[in-house]
Structure formats: structure tokens, C-alpha cells
């Protein structure tokens, strides 16, 4: 045992002593934060895009302009709603009610802001000032030809801004035709907004032609069923499926991706580590002191320690934020997702999945590494291995859709899938006995794989069996 711990300790210190470890320790949370917030900052940093509408019929222009206004209103409502739900959940309902009661978008923002300033002034600091994605202006020229210089930036608008695009709404034989002019060829959202607006307009016109009262036609267009999803199980209480019920699935999905990326990156560390030791010619010396199995376990423990250190740091950071979110924003989206991570079944599944998945995939990668003479040779193996590792991810989407489908149930008892599918299925009410059973099965599978991997490891490092010899390109001896 002491030899295993010595091997583990040396590997641990070697990794922790490398500057790359400290870099990943510090940069990973920063990168995650950047990935989470960069799109928001980018979206906020971009000024609204300036559009203009040319239309043969004023009704078409009005319908499209209204669609843009509605979108801007909904965007603002969504942003204000998300903010108050996170920062001031106790008054979120009132703030949104005030927004909805206001006559315009700007007034709605002000009304919600007023509620926050009166009742939760501490949450006012970062209150959003959403700006619309598009601003509609009167056409600076009478037709498309005259608009061209504005559209390709040869000419700016009177206030110095650039015209982003122009919608030319024509009627051909009575039917609307949309021409969208813009130099931003890959972005067609404005034309899609116009299309949806004019489709509704066409339906309204058709209803009126059929003799339906215009007001009634508008009412008919606004018809939309309400949907309630219900859970029939006794444990589900009222049965209504809300975010609180769905949150564990989102958390499980996030944990499955974390597990997958950790297993893959840590397994790569093991693979390259053992290849480096082979090329350093140190294994012969070590093998007179430790058996291949001891060395394999020692190495797995050493790198597990590295992962544990990373997770302890990140976990302490993330856990603090999550528990803060779970308690202080209990009713908000963030709070409910945070609370879902603390679901006991999910924690058990993650613990089993992480330990067993790491040991199993780690042992496989160590064994593969022992068969390689160089990183280049390892890369030839990584392709097929990556495909095998991708297979569990392919089952995650179907498992989310139907965690109790027979194929998913069966696959969750196949060791290479178990760590991931157990995570996905756990929040769906997987019985504890089944979780324990999968844990026991994984424990047995890990032992078998460790023993097999030790044999391959011995063949690789002692008898110098390699990928090359396996494929008969080079004889060793």
C-alpha cells in the first residue's frame, strides 16, 4: 500500500508542481465566467441596428413595425423579469405586473424599476436598461435605388448612423412580397420578423374577405392554447411540472457534461504521463519495487488527487455561489437550478459516476498509453477511443427525453454508459436500490478493468508490446 501511495504522491506533486496546473486552476473559472457573460455583454455593447421600411401599402408597413415593437417589448420584459427574479425574487411578481400594466416598453421598464427602487433599493444598482435590437426610422430615400448608398455605407444618415438594412414590402398580384436589403448577408432575422408579421396580416385579410369582422379576425389570430404539463406520480404533489421539477434534469445534464470533459481531460493526462515515463526509461527501475497493478492504481490515485484538488477549489467557489443562490434566490430560475444540484440522488449518481467513470476510463487510457512509444503513436489510438467516449454522449439526449425507455435502461447497465446514464436517470426518480445496484456493478467492472489494464500495462512496459508490434509493423524484443 505504501508503494501505491508513494507512486500517487509523486505523480500528484509532479502535476501540481507544473505551471499548467495553476494556470488551469485559475483560468477555468474565469473562462467559464467569460463564456457565460460574454454574449450578454456583447449583446449589450452592440448599438441597436437601424432599419427602414419601404412599403407599397401602409397597412403592411404598420404590421411589420408593430412586430418589431412587440419583439422589443418582449425582449425588455424578459430581461427585466430575469433580473428581478435573480436579484429581488420577493417583489418579482409585482415588478412584472407593473411592467405589463404600463402603456409602452419604456414606461414598463420605468414602472418595474420604480417598484424595485421603492421596495428593494439594494437591487437597483444593476437594474437593466434594455435597448431594442432594432430601431425603425423613416426611409431616408424614396426608393431602393436611392437607398443603396446608405445601405452599403457610402452615405450615412443625417445623425451620422449607418443604415443596417431596408425592408421593401411590395404587393405582387395582391400578395405581399418581402425584399430584404442589407450588406450583412448571413443575418436574415429582420426578414423573418417581417414574414411572420405579414403572414398574420394575410390571414387577417383573408378572414375579412370571408366576411369576418376585422375585430373578430384579430381575436381569432390571437387564439393560443395554454399548456400545463403534469406528473402523475404521488410524490409529485399537485402534479404540475414547473421549473422546480425540471431543474434536476438540467443539473444532471450539466454534471454529465462536466463528468465527460473531466474524464476525457484527466484520462489524457494519464495517457501522456505514461508515454513520457516510457520514453524516460524509468519504468524498469520502478517495476523492481512496485507491481504493474500497484503502479496503475498509484497513478490513478495521483491524477485523481489532481482532479480532486481542482474540484475542491472550483467546488468551494461554485458550491458557495450555488448555496448562496439556492437560499437567497429560492424562487428564481438560478435558485431552483442551484438547489437541483444538491438533490441527494444526483449527488449519489455523480459520486458513483465520477469515481467509477474516472477509474474505468483512466485505467483504459493508462493501458493504451503503455502500448505507445510516442505521443504521435497515441494519437493514432485516440481517434477510435474518442468515438467510444462519444457514444455515451449520443445517448444523453434520448435519455433526457425518456429516461425509462427500455434501450436506455439496458444501456445504463453497460459499464461504459453507466456513469453518464445514471446521472441523467437519477433525477427522474430512479429507485435507490437501482442506483446502489449500478454502483455495485460499476465497482465490479472497475476491478475487472483494472486487472485487465494491469496485464496490458505489464505487456506494454515490460515486454514492450506496442501498437506497432500489434499491427506487425515493427518487431520488438
Amino acid at each position, binding site marked *: 500500500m*505504501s*508503494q501505491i501511495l*508513494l*507512486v500517487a504522491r*509523486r505523480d500528484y506533486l*509532479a502535476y501540481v*508542481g*507544473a505551471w499548467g496546473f495553476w494556470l488551469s486552476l485559475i483560468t477555468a473559472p474565469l473562462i467559464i465566467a467569460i463564456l457565460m457573460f460574454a454574449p450578454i455583454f456583447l449583446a449589450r455593447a452592440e448599438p441597436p441596428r437601424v432599419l427602414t421600411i419601404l412599403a407599397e401599402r401602409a397597412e403592411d408597413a404598420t404590421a411589420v413595425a408593430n412586430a418589431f415593437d412587440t419583439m422589443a417589448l418582449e425582449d425588455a420584459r424578459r430581461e427585466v423579469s430575469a433580473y428581478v427574479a435573480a436579484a429581488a425574487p420577493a417583489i418579482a411578481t409585482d415588478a412584472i405586473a407593473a411592467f405589463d400594466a404600463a402603456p409602452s416598453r419604456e414606461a414598463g421598464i420605468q414602472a418595474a424599476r420604480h417598484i424595485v427602487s421603492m421596495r428593494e433599493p439594494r437591487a437597483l444598482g444593476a437594474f437593466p436598461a434594455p435597448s431594442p435590437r432594432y430601431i425603425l426610422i423613416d426611409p431616408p430615400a424614396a426608393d431602393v435605388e436611392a437607398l443603396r448608398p446608405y445601405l452599403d455605407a457610402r452615405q450615412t444618415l443625417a445623425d451620422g448612423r449607418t443604415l443596417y438594412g431596408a425592408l421593401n414590402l411590395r404587393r405582387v398580384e395582391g400578395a405581399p412580397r418581402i425584399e430584404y436589403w442589407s450588406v450583412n448577408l448571413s443575418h436574415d432575422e429582420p426578414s423573418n420578423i417581417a414574414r411572420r408579421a405579414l403572414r398574420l396580416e394575410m390571414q387577417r385579410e383573408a378572414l375579412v374577405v370571408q366576411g369576418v369582422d376585422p375585430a373578430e379576425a384579430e381575436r381569432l389570430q390571437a387564439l393560443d392554447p395554454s399548456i400545463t404539463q403534469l406528473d402523475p406520480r404521488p410524490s409529485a404533489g399537485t402534479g404540475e411540472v414547473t421549473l422546480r421539477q425540471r431543474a434536476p434534469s438540467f443539473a444532471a445534464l450539466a454534471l454529465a457534461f462536466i463528468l465527460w470533459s473531466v474524464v476525457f481531460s484527466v484520462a489524457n493526462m494519464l495517457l501522456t504521463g505514461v508515454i513520457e515515463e516510457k520514453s*524516460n*526509461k*524509468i519504468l*524498469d*527501475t*520502478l*517495476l*523492481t*519495487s*512496485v*507491481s504493474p497493478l500497484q503502479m496503475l492504481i498509484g497513478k490513478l490515485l495521483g491524477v485523481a488527487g489532481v482532479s480532486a484538488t481542482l474540484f475542491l477549489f472550483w467546488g468551494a467557489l461554485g458550491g458557495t455561489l450555488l448555496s448562496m443562490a439556492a437560499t437567497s434566490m429560492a424562487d428564481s430560475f438560478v435558485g431552483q437550478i442551484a438547489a437541483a444540484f444538491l438533490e441527494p440522488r444526483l449527488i449519489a449518481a455523480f459520486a458513483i459516476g465520477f469515481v467509477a467513470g474516472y477509474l474505468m476510463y483512466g485505467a483504459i487510457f493508462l493501458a493504451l498509453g503503455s502500448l505507445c512509444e510516442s505521443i504521435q503513436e497515441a494519437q493514432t489510438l485516440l481517434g477510435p477511443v474518442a468515438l467510444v467516449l462519444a457514444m455515451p454522449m449520443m445517448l444523453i439526449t434520448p435519455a433526457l427525453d425518456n429516461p425509462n425507455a427500455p434501450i436506455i435502461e439496458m444501456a445504463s447497465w453497460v459499464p461504459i454508459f453507466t456513469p453518464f446514464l445514471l446521472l441523467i436517470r437519477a433525477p427522474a426518480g430512479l429507485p435507490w436500490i437501482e442506483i446502489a445496484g449500478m454502483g455495485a456493478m460499476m465497482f465490479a467492472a472497475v476491478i475487472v478493468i483494472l486487472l485487465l489494464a494491469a496485464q496490458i500495462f505489464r505487456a506494454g512496459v*515490460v*515486454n514492450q508490446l506496442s501498437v506497432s508490434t500489434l499491427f506487425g509493423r515493427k*518487431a*520488438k*524484443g
Partner: protein
Amino acid sequence: MNAALEAEGLVKRYGARTAVQDISFSVPQGAIYGVLGPNGAGKSSTLRMLVGVLRPTAGQITLMGGPISRQTLQRVGYLPEERGLYRSMSARGAIAYLARLKGTPASIAYKRADALLEAHGLGKVRRKKIKTLSKGMAQKVQVLASIAHEPDFIIFDEPFSGLDPVNQRVLEDTIRAQAAAGRTILFSTHVMEHAERLCDRILLIAHGQKAFEGTVPEALALAPSVAMLETDGDFDLAAALGPRGFNIELDGQEHGNKRWRAHLDNSKGSRQLLAACVEAGAPLSLFEPARASLHEAFVALVGDKAMPAAE
């Protein structure tokens, strides 16, 4: 004397290729034992079987009175032919680490590492990383790492390769010192001079098979010996001693003297040759029996092609 190691009928096959074929030998307790042979003779495979790294295809090994086990291997120091240390470890860290893997407590391992490095002129670099040391220094560190746990049995595989002549001498001294401390040492080499200077007993392997096992004098006795002679004037030594059973041939002439080469054997040795010269009244100006070398002995045993060139 008790045997520290006994190997019986060792065979190692790699697929269809036989690297070691039915080799048996015995290493006495406290001896310096050399395993000699050209590159590819099967020396490293034999040594790797002795330390349990390779499993023999057939045969038995008894190490310090028992079969190879983790416990007996704790008492063995091993320097493999393919050497290497963790490049990012310090010299003392590397020595202490390998000693600790052999069961030495940490505090003792570090003290021994410091003492060994100091004693071998590496005290100043003890905290330097292996990757910053010269190849020779790193090799010395590895030798020290193999003996830091004070093993009873030390196995060095080609320990002199890669060392300059000065460090080869230092290593020879280290081997003698370890033997003087009562340890058994077995090393392999393809350079006969090291074995000749150090070994009590030797094993010669050629083509995976044992060609000889015994003491160095026993091996030297197998080498054909010669003596170089020089006579003044026209004296015909071959004609004078030929009838007495000596095989003598003319080797050249210089300044009016004749040089002769006499081929000796056990019954007609250098002493008998000198006596015969005196009896025949040969005007000798030079009598120089040439000392046989291990290299010559092994050429006689296995032929020129199987042997490496002498260094």
C-alpha cells in the same frame, strides 16, 4: 559459500525468438559476478528475469534463499540498461524516492541521498533537477539511487556504458566498496577489461546460451598463450626447439636480430620454454610471455564473430 542467487535452466522467448536458452549459474554470497557477452547476447533479458521484471518462459530463480518476491526484491538494487529518472525531480529527491519505494523510511532516505551525493562529488547539485544535469552526472545519480536503500544484492546492467574513463574508474571503486561492505554484486558488460579487473566469477553468454562460467583465472587459462622472443644473430630458434615439442615461428627481423612467436599450452608453458632456450644455448635478447586476456579467452570459446571488440 552460500549462493546469493541461483538460476536453473532459464529460458526466455519473445514469440518465435529465443533470447535466453537454458542458462544456469550460481552467484556466491559477497562475490562480484560478471555477466559478459556481446550486444544482443541475452544479458539484459537474463538480468531482467533476475529482478522479476520479466517472467522466464522456463526455469527457476532462487534469490537470497527463496523465490523472487516483493520482499526479496526489496533487498535488491537494480540499475537497468535503459536508464532514466524523472526529469523534473531533484537529484536527492530521485534517490530518496527510489529508496523509499524499496522500503527505506523518508528521513533516512533523504539523509542517505545527501551523503551518497556528497561522497560522489555531486553534493553541489543535489537540489538541481535531473534535466539540468549532464548525462554522466544523471547516470551517477541513478547508480546511487540503486544502492541508496543499502541492498544485499546489487544488479547493474551495463553500468559503464555512457561513462567517460574517469567516471568508469569511479564506478569500479564504488562496486569494490559495495563488495567490501559485504554485498553481492552482479553486473553485465560487453567490455572485458572491467570484468577482468573486478570480477570473482564470470558468466559468458553468446547467442542466448551459456558459453562459460567460472573464475577469471579459469577463463584466462582457456585462452591460447604466446611468448615473444628475440635472438641475436642467425640463431634458428624454431629449429633448435622444434624437436623439443615447441611450436615456434619467425615473427620478423630487426637490427640483425630475429623475433620469434612461441605458441604455448599447459604442458609447454613459458617456464618450460625458457628452460629449453637455456638448454639449447639460444642467445636471447628478449623473452616476453604475453598475458592472455579475457577477450582472447572468449574468442577462443565462441569465435570472433560472436565477440565484441576489446576496448
